[in-house]
């Protein structure tokens, strides 16, 4: 009986931690990202998952000068929504591209992840916005 509260507490902690960690494959809220902050991640694309309901990218880079480059899990909306908002298509951003990403980081400081707000290709300067609430009108050309 003495052990039970400890186990229960551990279980609750795990649930709490898991809920706070970057969730990707499901249709989920963006509240785990701190949208009062905007960080800039400069690096190169390691992996792109062009999938529904959330496109994700693994980017190896830095957010501060002097940092060692490390992997960050970047997330955004669906492929269809990206095309509508800024013409971002499957081949717009590729593995190996050098990118500059404005993003809202995960609230959990132990994890390196973020919600992409804008992605700029360093080679061409072309940038892609991701705000699906911005383009809510019919008949977009």
């Amino acid at each position, binding site marked *: 009986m003495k052990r039970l509260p400890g186990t229960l507490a551990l279980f609750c902690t795990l649930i709490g931690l898991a809920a706070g960690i970057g969730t*990707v494959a*499901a249709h989920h*809220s963006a509240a*785990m990202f701190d949208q009062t902050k905007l960080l800039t991640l400069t690096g190169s694309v390691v*992996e792109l998952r062009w999938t*529904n309901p959330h496109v994700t990218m693994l980017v190896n880079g830095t957010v501060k000068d002097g940092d060692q480059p490390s992997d960050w899990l970047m997330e955004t909306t*669906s492929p269809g929504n990206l095309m509508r908002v800024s013409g971002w298509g499957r081949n717009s951003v590729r593995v190996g591209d050098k990118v500059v990403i404005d993003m809202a980081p995960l609230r959990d400081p*132990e994890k390196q992840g973020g919600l992409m707000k804008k992605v700029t290709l360093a080679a061409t300067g072309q940038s892609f916005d991701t705000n699906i609430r911005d383009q809510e009108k019919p*008949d977009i050309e």
Partner: protein
Amino acid sequence: MRNGFVVLLTLMAAASSAQAAEPVKNPPPTAQQWADLAKLPDWSGVWNPKITDQDAQVKTNMPPWTPKAAAQIATMLAAEKAGRPPPIFVDCLPEGMPSWMLVSHNAMEFLFTPGRVTMLGESDGNRIRRIYTDGRSHPDEPDPTFHGHSIGHWEGGTLVVDTVGVVPQAYIAISEAAGVPNNGDIHIVEHIHLATPDILNDDLEITAPHVLTTTWKTTRIYFRQRARKFDIVEGVCLQGSFSEKVDKDGNAVFAPISKEWGGNMTAPNAPH
């Protein structure tokens, strides 16, 4: 005695005839039925949900929850506000009815065929609603499914849809992070119609006796795109759980990536 025997024989013949009766079939559509589709309103194109309105209704149009459901919703909203949104849609299972209509961020399209309206959702190949408009009734005991059993009829330009038979586990979600399972016996009536030439409204009336005290009414808004670049492309939600790799034989394969609770991917640890 002989009359009784004749009556008995007649009854037996009738029973036997009933047992040998033809199963119900869906007849092939007639040319007229195909032509009649042209008289329906134009719901072609790709429909995007109005997400800002979904956001607003969390504040302006809270469902009439039972006290027990309301308490759970309050806890979820508080957790979301604190930056720990509970993941209610996990493992790529369909949002189902009514949540697809309520909180999806993805596009959808309508197909009109004789006796049926079919809705296809972008997010995954299993976002499908089949709405039978051939005059049939609901089965006495429909197999419970994520999207339910839907029958509909046209009243002018409005499709009136009646849905039952939704799995009890399907959420009534007000956002991606707040909702409760309907817990069974949910009944959804919809009036779907164009509000303007390129804006579609789905007026939903949701009755869920285990979690709602009365019928909840909400209108969800969709806007139409016609540009071909917005054509809905196949989506496979589970694909997000795999990486594109090359195996030892040089084959292109999908390799599972490390997942954690709820089937979601984990972000890399911050280096120390």
